[in-house]
Structures are given as C-alpha cells and as structure tokens.
C-alpha cells in the first residue's frame, strides 16, 4: 500500500499530464481528421482532373482490382471512374507504383473511357534525383508530354533516341535518367494491361471493341 502511495506521490504529475496530453491529442485528431482525409481525396482528384479535364468528379469503383507484381506479390488497388456532365464516363484513373532509381515511384494514371488510350500520368510520390529522374514530373518536358498525347494502351518500349513528337509505343527516355524513364514505362506496362483485363472481366468496360 505504502509502495503504491509512494509511486503515486512520485509520478502523479506524469499520470495526470499523460491523461491531459492524451485528451489534447484525441481532441485535435477528432477535429482535424476529416480535413486530413479530405485532403488526400482532393489531391487525387486534383491530379486525376489534371489528366482528365472533362471529368467533373471521380467515383470509386466498388470492385477492387487485384494486381500481381512481377515478384508475385498481389495487392489491391482502387480504380476511380471519372464522370463528366450527366454521369457520362470520361475516363478511368488509378494509382500504381513500382521502384524507380532511388525509391518507390507512385503514379496516378488516367486512361480514356474505353481504356484504349492513355490520358496521361502524374507523379504522386517519387524520390528521384532532382534534375535527373525528377523530370518525370516535369510537365513541360518532352517525356511527360509523350503520354499525354493519347498513346494507345499496350506494351510500351523505351528507346534512348528517336522522335518524341511521334505518337507511338516508343517512348523516348529522359537523357541522363534512363532508369527513371524505364521505371515509369515498366510500371505502366506491368499494371495497366492487368487492370484493363480485370475490368473487362468484371464487365466494367467492354472488351476489345
């Protein structure tokens, strides 16, 4: 008994303040949590909207799409449907990721309604070298623009020299950052086809038409 009393005497402040701090944290969290969640959604929407300007809002497709990575790991991703005026489907958007030069690269990818052509990609998170791989983000650089031009969905090929103006499956790499360029192409090659296949299976898009 005496021991307990001693303990409380010594550390009542700690106990009380833990309690108070806990409350403080809980309150702040309670107050800010919705905003934080909304932020994340807003960001995705903003990026996707940048790729699909016709879309008014995005809706998560209920079904989850399962992706198998080249290492054999499976993961679920969410696909968002971009809806224009009058709930018309203007395209699809989803986030995929893979390893880049320095670290993981997370991409937001958009394709058109029929899942036939790319509408472009944007970088959600990357840690590539500034001035090198970082240019995969650069919207004024030829590399990014190649995907914006309605490239047909399918296997892409990375080349180190060629004409970036031409719309074909040959993607001209960023000079000095072949690896990052390759990462983008690889991520797209590895995932977009799978997603298309599963979407078709689930009847969300009409296959092959």
């Amino acid at each position, binding site marked *: 008994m005496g021991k307990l009393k001693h303990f409380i005497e010594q550390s009542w402040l700690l106990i009380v303040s833990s309690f108070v*701090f806990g409350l403080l*944290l*809980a309150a702040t*969290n309670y107050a800010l949590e919705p905003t934080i969640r909304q932020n994340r959604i807003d960001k995705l929407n903003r990026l996707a909207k940048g790729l699909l300007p016709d879309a008014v809002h995005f809706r998560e497709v209920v079904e989850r799409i399962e992706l198998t990575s080249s290492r054999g790991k499976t993961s679920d991703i969410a696909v968002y449907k971009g809806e224009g005026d009058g709930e018309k489907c203007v395209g699809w958007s989803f986030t995929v990721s893979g390893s*880049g*030069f*320095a670290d993981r690269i997370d991409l937001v990818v958009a394709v058109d309604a029929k899942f036939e052509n790319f509408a472009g990609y944007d970088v959600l998170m990357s840690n590539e070298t500034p001035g090198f791989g970082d240019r995969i983000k650069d919207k004024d650089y030829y590399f990014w623009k190649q995907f914006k031009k309605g490239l047909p969905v399918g296997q892409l090929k990375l080349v180190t020299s060629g004409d970036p103006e031409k719309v074909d499956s040959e993607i001209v790499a960023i000079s000095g950052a072949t*690896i990052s360029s390759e990462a983008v192409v690889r991520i797209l090659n590895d995932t977009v086809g799978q997603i298309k296949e599963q979407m078709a299976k689930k009847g969300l898009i009409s296959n092959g038409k």
Partner: protein
Amino acid sequence: MDTLNALVLAFISMVIINNLVFTKFLGTCPYLGVSGRIDMAFGMGMAVTFVVTLSGVLTYMINNWILMRFGLEVARYVCFILVIAGAVQLVEMYLRKFFPSLYESFGIFLPLITTNCAILGLCLFLDLWGVDSLILAAVESFGAGIGFTMAICIMAGIRENLQLADVPGCLKGAPITLITAGLLAMAFMGFAGMIR
C-alpha cells in the same frame, strides 16, 4: 531463397545506398561531434546499432500490431519516443548488470543516444516505406545501424588526418566536418540505382 535475397539486398541498401547520414541527414549531431578517435566512434556506432535494431523491431510491433489495429495512429510519435527511451534504459540496465565490461566501453554513449534522431528517424522511415514484415524491419534497422557506424568511422579516420592538416582557422571543427560530409555524401551517390 528469394526472401533471403531480398533481405540481403535490403541490408546492403541500408548500409550504402540509403545510408541514413548521407542521404537522410539523420544523426548529424554525433557525426559533427566525433573526434579523431576511431575506437570511440566505433563504440558509439555499435551502441547506436544495438539500440536502433531494438527500437526498430519494437516500434514495428507496436505500430503494426497495436496502433494500426486500434486506430491509434495519432499516438504514434509519443509511443515511438517512449519506446526508444525505454529501450535505451533497458539496454543500459541490462548491460550494467550482465556485461559490465561492455557497459564500461559503450555505456557512456547510451544516454546520448535517446536524443539521436537517427533512431527515431529510422522508426519513422520504416513506417513511411511501408515495411511489411518484422524480419525485414529488423534487417533494415540493423543495416541502418551498421551504415551509421561505417559513416562515423570513416569520418573519425578523416578527422584524425585533418588534425595534422592546415585547415583555415574559421573552418576548423564543425565547418570542415560538414564539408567533408558533403563530399562523402556525393561520393556515396555512386551507389544509387544499384539495387532496384
């Protein structure tokens, strides 16, 4: 075999490619504090390795098995720092009791380690990177500790040579160490992109 391969790669990656000091700026204070004594630096590095591995594992367990499960993410930082402080205390007591000679040799560094951001930083990065298995967390934390030891030992060696160099007065001490660290960080960029 694949897992083993992945673990080895993760370890190497933490030691040379994603070295905490050179790429993440963590643990810079002890880095600046190192003297030209390589044995001291090594002791410090070992102590950090010990604690960082322990804390990496503990925080991984707490984070993934308790906090995430019960939606208590908001308490993450408080928990992490308490775990680290606790781990340091524990290690100190344990060493003092069972390995007095070891305690003598790196016990002095232990209290300093609580405020070493490399430890907390690593725990946070493990979370950020989404490390998804306990063994990977353990290997990565251990690798981080070894990477720190390597960096601090290299720096101690360089400092010993700089003792005899004619460094301009205003750059002696921290400034020249920072510049050296910068050139070192630049040198270690060579390993970037090695493991993908």
